């Protein structure tokens, strides 16, 4: 009986990796728990630490890798092929096309808004014949495995609100990030690694990088154990992971054994089940100290893997290295992996910087899809590639034959998705001749969120959390699952 009480108590408290790691043998007893014990919040599945009753329906995907291209890649130079723009090059963007669209403070002062055609070549790729820019030769090779969406759209026109919107469903701070929602809803399959891992790589262009914010992987009003854990390239791969200088593993083990015994003595006196949980968390921390370095140890990866991902994949901190790590995280059951590649904000010198940026991103992104596929992991892993908005057809700054820049464009931009139930070889959505407006099949950022949750077997309207009296969800009051993307 006491055991049951303790379980009940333990589960009302917050866990990091879910109940199973606590060693309470909880699964069998979970059904005894009255769902409504949790004061408005849903009960927990002790096996995963996610919510009982989730997924809502059989999932296609068990993992998500979101390759966030921070800054806003230019759809016009990568995926949205507009040959007719050559004709309009240098002419003023017609007001009828702009149609009252608000313009950022960076170009609103410009006396003209001249159309800038892409200077990059496009060709058809794969069996599907999708148009892909010459900047993405490797992506062109996997085009039959991915679905290209040309009509993503958002309302935000600046980085902070746009990236916050895409990652949390609201333009203003305060909401949980996607990964936190997924961790909250579905928990983890690995009890020695976090459910939600974040990695950041720096710009490959010469221009300044846009900043990022911890709220983008934060837990908002969800319990803080759902926030993304940052894997770093320098120092400890996870903050405070390494034993301090002078403490070796046997010493750490000895300290932990003593600590466990001492904590149990006190647990016997005050009978607070939180103490048992704490003991379990220390053991998990101890295991993490091995499992994380093991994850980051690429020495056993064969040569051909590095060739696949490109030479940068040997260098910690690069996007290529992180793509390879993302695959290893999926293999270990990590639920949500979020990469941020900085440096896509090409307001000026776009031809130079976009090329540099693509050189470091194209091969590893394609390699990740290829690698997951040949290992049989692509089916259960949803890969999403894209940024917080697109770029304008009109030039920011001076337009020349060889140089131009593009401002932020929210009305349509391109992303691609692969695996996890996504149909390969599909190109969805059409934009107008200027690449300025959606003509058909617009996909709002909340539609993307709804579709991502759908792939995970979650109904986005039913994954909610009560905060300040309201039942919040990732997609707020919007979001439609884009069924045509799903196979």
């Amino acid at each position, binding site marked *: 009986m006491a055991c049951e009480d303790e379980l009940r108590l333990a589960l009302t408290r917050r*866990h990091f990796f879910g109940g199973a790691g606590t060693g309470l043998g909880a699964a069998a007893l979970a059904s005894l728990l009255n769902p409504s014990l949790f004061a408005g919040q849903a009960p927990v599945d002790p096996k995963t630490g996610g919510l009982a009753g989730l997924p809502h329906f059989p999932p296609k995907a068990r993992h998500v890798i979101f390759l966030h291209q921070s800054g806003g890649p230019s759809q016009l130079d990568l995926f949205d092929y507009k040959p007719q723009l050559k004709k309009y090059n240098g002419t003023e963007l017609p007001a009828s096309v702009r149609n009252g669209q608000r313009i950022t403070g960076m170009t609103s002062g410009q006396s003209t808004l001249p159309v800038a055609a892409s200077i990059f070549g496009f060709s058809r790729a794969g069996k599907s014949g999708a148009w892909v820019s010459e900047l993405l030769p490797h992506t062109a090779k996997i085009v039959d495995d991915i679905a290209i969406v040309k009509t993503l759209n958002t309302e935000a026109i600046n980085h902070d609100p746009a990236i916050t919107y895409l990652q949390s469903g609201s333009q203003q701070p305060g909401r949980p990030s996607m990964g936190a929602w997924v961790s909250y809803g579905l928990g983890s399959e690995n009890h020695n690694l976090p459910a939600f891992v974040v990695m950041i790589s720096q710009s490959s262009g010469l221009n300044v990088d846009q900043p990022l914010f*911890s709220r983008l992987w934060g837990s908002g009003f969800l319990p803080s154990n759902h926030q993304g854990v940052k894997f770093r390239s320098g120092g400890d791969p996870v903050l*405070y992971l390494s034993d301090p200088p002078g403490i*070796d593993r046997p010493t750490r083990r000895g300290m932990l054994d003593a600590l466990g015994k001492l904590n149990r003595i006190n647990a016997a006196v005050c*009978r607070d089940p939180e103490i048992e949980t704490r003991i379990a968390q220390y053991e998990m921390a101890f295991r993490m100290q091995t499992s994380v370095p093991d994850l980051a140890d690429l020495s056993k990866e064969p040569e051909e893997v590095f060739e696949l991902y490109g030479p940068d994949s040997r260098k910690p901190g690069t996007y290529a290295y992180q793509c390879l790590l993302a695959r290893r995280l999926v293999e270990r059951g990590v639920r949500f992996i979020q990469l941020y590649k900085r440096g896509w904000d090409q307001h000026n010198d776009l031809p130079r910087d976009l090329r540099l940026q693509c050189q470091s991103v194209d091969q590893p992104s394609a390699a990740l899809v290829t690698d997951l596929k040949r290992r049989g992991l692509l089916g259960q892993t949803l890969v999403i590639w894209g940024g917080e908005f697109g770029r304008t057809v009109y030039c920011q700054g001076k337009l020349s034959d060889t140089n131009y820049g593009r401002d932020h464009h929210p009305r349509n931009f391109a992303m691609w998705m692969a695996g996890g139930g996504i149909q390969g070889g599909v190109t969805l959505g059409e934009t107008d001749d200027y690449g300025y407006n959606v003509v058909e099949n617009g996909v709002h950022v909340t539609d993307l969120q709804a579709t991502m949750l759908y792939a995970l077997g979650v109904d986005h309207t039913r994954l909610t959390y009560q905060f300040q009296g309201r039942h919040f969800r990732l997609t707020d009051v919007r979001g439609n699952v884009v069924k045509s993307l799903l196979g």
Partner: protein
Amino acid sequence: MGARHTVVLALAAWAPFAGAASGPVDFDREIRPILSDNCFTCHGPDEKQRMVKLRFDTKEGAFADRGGYRVIVPGNAAASRMYQRISAPDKTKRMPPPFANRTLTPAQIELIGRWINEGAKWEPHWAFLPPRRPPLPRVKNRSWPRNAIDAFILERLEKEGLAPSPQADRETLLRRVSFDLTGLPPTAEELDAILRDRSLRAYENAVDRLLASPRYGERMAMEWLDLARYADTHGYHIDSHRDMWPWRDWVIAAFNRNLPYDSFALEQLAGDLLPDATPEQRIATGFNRNHMINFEGGAIPEEYLNEYVVDRVETTSGAFLGLTMGCARCHDHKYDPISQKEFYRFYAFFKNVDEKGLDGRRGNAEPILALPSPAQQAELASLKQGIESREKEMHDAGIPALEERWEKTRLDTLLPAPQDGLLAHYELDGSLSDISGHYRHGRTLTGSVGTAAGAVGKAADFDGETRVEFGDAGSFDRGDAFTLAVWLRPTGHTEMAVLQKVEDAATRRGYELLLDQSEAVPVLKRGSHLTLRLTSRWPADAIEVRTRERLIDGTWTHIAIAYDGSGKAAGLRLYLDGQPRPFEVLRDRLAGSIRTARPLETGNKTLGKTYRGQIDDLRLYSAALAAAEVARLAAEEPLRAALRVPPDKRSKEQKKQLHEYFLTYDAPEPLRKVHAELADLLARKERLEREIPTSMVMKELEKPRASYVLGRGDYRNRGEQVVPGVPSCLPPMAKGLPDNRLGLARWLLDPAHPLTARVAVNRYWQMYFGTGIVKTSENFGSQGEPPSHPELLDWLATEFIRTGWDIKAMQRLIVTSATYRQSSRVTPQLAEKDPENRLLARGPRLRLPAEMIRDNALAVSGLLNGQMGGPSVFPYQPAGIWEDIAYGDVYSAQTYYQSHGQDLYRRSMYSFWKRTMPPPALITFDAPDREKCTARRTLTNTPLQALVLMNDPTYIEAARALAERMIAAGGSDPARRIACGFRLATARKPKPAEVRILRDLARHEALHFSEDRKAALALIRAGESPFDKKLDVAELAAWTTVASTILNLDETITKE
């Protein structure tokens, strides 16, 4: 059994402390929450969303005659349409409908049925009625209560058949109340004192001592900073720094002088509007300036002006009213009777601030209050006076005429640049030719060289990919004296090679000029150190020197390197802008030749990136130029270039340059002196103004800004114009109150206000017991949880007002109650009956808040620095975590510069709070990011917390310091050492079994470290504070592991 049993279970489930199921159903506590959560979205206050014109949030709506049928027929559930629909067996008829995503449990349906059958008694929402002071309840156990609180708590326990727990022992209690009132543990002396104090008032005396401690204000402020979303950065996008610590210090001081809550609130909401407002009262208004502020390039000011005002509404309503008014921003509130229009009327109180939509680029955003000390004030006045008088002198001197005459003749008198030994001179004015007469032309290797404005005429512009070479110019060897002079304006912000003449990547024989990664330098600039290498074979056979100062990115600097051929770093002179500068010698072991046949070229990627920026006027000499010659090169060549331009064609910069040169070097002596004095005074004034602290404050615009209802909350969708006003569900503003923030504050603090006092005392309760009497301390609306002890809440609220809003008295009342003093031990019966401890048949047992966990470690180890207030500090933090996400450019708070010395050991509330990357160790223990008002922190228990306590250098250093204390106090007796450390950390003496475990650990580790003294030394070197050199390193290391184990105890980080 069946149905009845379910009801009991559900009741227990939904609110385990709700009244016994046998009594009548309590509408306010049991029914309204079900209706609110499940029905109000479509049948609630939001008029636009309301379905079939039916509403359950008002009595009229719920009981209306609907033309032939009634939704609720009191006394007859079966005849009530509501009950029929919620219990309909046909799923298509059942309410709530599937799209609502809400389902009623059978228990809830039964409960509603019972309520209707009992007569459907309806009451208005409790929180909108003023608190009434209830009589003290009668209890059976008359001896237990110590004050009124206990009567309410005990009455309920007796009803539930529970008995209170015995009082916690004195040490536990002292530790509990010390954390609760000061955020710090008791000292050993304080523990001894309370054990010795035989008086009946021993505990009360301790409480009085703690309330009088300045630590009390800090502890109370910790709570308030979360609500007020206090931070040291602006929050959005670039997230650069701001100074709101004067406001934070005002809060601490206000608690310490026990400013009554009404004044505390009023001054923060409207201190600026008080007649003859003092600077302190203005600082207090920073409460409503703590919100995030944006200056993202390209953002639209109007959009953010709106966000700031919305944030003020959300924070003010959350902190003072316990209402989620923000929900009515886009539409009428779904649950509470607050319309969208009422939201914007409340909003109008906060709209009229003299602020900008985009601001904060350079520290604080307008409106700002400068806070000079009297000495600073006096100095500023005297500087201003000095500046004025000199400016007048300059003005009266007829400078333009003098200067014009000078300009005409100066070119003729200008000496030629040093010619002796000139090997090559590249003007770089649009070509790569050498004009020295030796004609070593440069050529482009990759890319193309641009032309830009230069330091001397035009300059060559490099984009980061372009490279040029200058042939065999400058082919020197170790024994050759030479000079290299050049103007540089780097813009790369990264490691770059500027110029090099290098044999190959393997030996690097030759010489090279490099810039390292540029880093932030004070006042919004970045800069890089300049490195020079003379190399025969890298790295063993080379000289390497580096400037101490940084070259500022985007600024022209003249560089001259003069080498005497001695083969020693001492034979190098390095000049910046004509002045010899000190440099660091990193390598000084050149023996071999540095000659190479490779060309001199702009840098390639052997190190960092290819040069980006401008280069101008490159000269090479076969001799070490004298200081005077270098000074002339730096000063006179730009002058010559500017003078050669016809006066009407000169750029603004050139005109300024000439003016400066004239006044500095060539004007009549008295004028030169005045000029120099003026420059000095201006620099001093600028420095002083930077040193004078400022704080952001509220300040009304002279001409009011209009407010409108904004459709869907969007700043672009202006609807009806509105004037300031309060929601109609609350009492109206008294006649005669001004319709500004001052009037609003006075309305809020009217003793008859139903929410203000309740919300405040509820949060105090939450501080001590972990959960408020109303659990949802941020939400007293219909979606909030009803109070566990409604009469107690009202009694406390009325008592708060009766005592003149005396904050300290309220804390004293709570912590001296018998309820608070109970032992926190859990019995199986209590675990079963009341797992969340809402009935309070035992004392609170809670993990400490983030700040206290660290402060405790610092305090018990003796490292804590008790200094109060002032600018925030930068304790240990893993390297790179700001830089990873930062803008990496010219703004503040992008790079973490760790503090040193005593600032490492300040209380955690003084740690610099960067919103987009808050202190990681505090966040791990559930501290909020301070982007929004937070009334309640979550409480998690995670492995990342274990990693912090085990491995963060903060805790390792504290463990070592604690070990030293243990050794000092315990002498050679391990048991005494353990007793000392254990007691400091937990306030109790260890049990024999505990001593045994730690003694075994100490013995084992002493053996280990005596065999590995290197490891021992590595461990005890943690942190910046020196370890005790008199102690044996192995022994100290072993005891450091013991101390670390003690600091990791669950009990150490828990308030028992």
